[in-house]
């Protein structure tokens, strides 16, 4: 059994297509293991080796990685929801109802998107508090702390823009109150509110604007900053858990 599987694998590895994609040969030496990481776009921002310490659950509770997993879940479920959703009043509300009661497995996807979004806000805040109380904002991590704050804001904006899309009473009033807060800004407040809503009331224009922000602009920005955030963790010497504090304790 094992031998036939191994021969099949070896013959696959011998093919020209395989060797054109994975050029470094089997990862059996330190050199080829390093090349496996460096030569792969999706892995190159990961370290070639990690300390066992930084893999402990109590190190950072995997909060950052879990936030990334939630982001991926939200992108996948969100794209699937887009196949049935029209960002137009009053169709948006009916589409949301259809997703819950008519479309096969629609309620599962919608709830996954909804609960995932709530969880992501929770985890991102938890992650921020954890990093803060562990002193993870101190040099050399101060740049990544700021990137993290931007990601927190992007998470909140994504959450807020997504809140309008069901187009129900809860959504309408949340956005009415939220955009009234914008208009409290001195001098330019009412102008900013007008541009944000595309009108004087929370109407069709506001729905379309929030939709475009929610499904295109904010996810692209989040994707960009998540990339910088993870890459920077390695450039700053891995997770903070391994480093010693001022008292020399680890």
């Amino acid at each position, binding site marked *: 059994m094992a031998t036939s599987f191994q021969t099949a694998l070896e013959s696959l590895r011998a093919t020209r297509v395989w060797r054109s994609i994975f050029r470094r040969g089997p990862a059996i030496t330190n050199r080829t293991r390093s090349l496996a990481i460096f030569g792969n776009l999706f892995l190159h921002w990961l370290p070639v080796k990690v300390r066992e310490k930084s893999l402990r659950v109590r190190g950072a509770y995997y909060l950052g990685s879990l936030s990334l997993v939630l982001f991926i879940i939200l992108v996948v479920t969100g794209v699937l929801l887009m196949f049935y959703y029209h960002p137009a009043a009053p169709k948006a509300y009916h589409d949301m109802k259809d997703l819950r009661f008519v479309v096969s497995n629609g309620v599962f996807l919608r709830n996954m998107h909804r609960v995932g979004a709530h969880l992501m806000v929770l985890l991102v805040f938890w992650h921020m508090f954890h990093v803060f109380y562990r002193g993870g904002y101190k040099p050399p991590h101060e740049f990544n702390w700021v990137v993290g704050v931007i990601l927190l804001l992007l998470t909140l904006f994504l959450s807020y823009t997504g809140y309008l899309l069901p187009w129900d009473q809860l959504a309408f009033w949340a956005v009415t*109150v939220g955009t009234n807060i914008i208009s409290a800004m001195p001098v330019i407040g009412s102008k900013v509110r007008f541009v944000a809503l*595309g009108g*004087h*009331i929370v109407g069709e*224009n506001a729905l379309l604007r929030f939709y475009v922000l929610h499904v295109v602009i904010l996810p692209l920005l989040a994707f960009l900053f998540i990339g910088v955030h993870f890459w920077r963790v390695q450039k700053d010497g891995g997770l903070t858990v391994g480093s010693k504090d001022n008292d020399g304790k680890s």
Partner: protein
Amino acid sequence: MSETNQNPAAELSLGGKTGVSRRDFLNEITLGALGVAGLGSVALTYQYFSPNVLFEPSTTFRAGNPDLYPVNSVTFLQDQQVYIVRTATGFSAVSAVCTHLGCITQWKPEANMIACPCHGSKFQPNGKKIEGPAPRPLPHYAINLTADGELQVDKLQIIKADQVLKV
């Protein structure tokens, strides 16, 4: 080669006073042009995002003949969420939307005040706040007479509370 490029003799002498190198001159002119183009595109983007035509309910409405409203009365116009308040001095149009969280307030003639059912804010008939949690008084909308003698209210224009339409 590289030494001749870095030679100060390569600098252009403008007006015989300060020397500005060709590179600095081109850099500044390029950055300046990009700055102007950047500001212009910000302005154009702002214009693009401010709609010129809105498909919203009209913000101005006619409130009928002034004689419909007796002196010293408060009339609630449900469709527009506005109180037409007539005192001895004249007319004012007071918003019925509570400044706290946007609930629709109610006129209580027996207590001579406007009260919000949601969180208990209280206002005088002229919109002045008696009791919170509302942070601000009820705003007054611009009110005037049309050519054919009817009251007209513009909900986009907020005026001072002491501006009253005398009829």
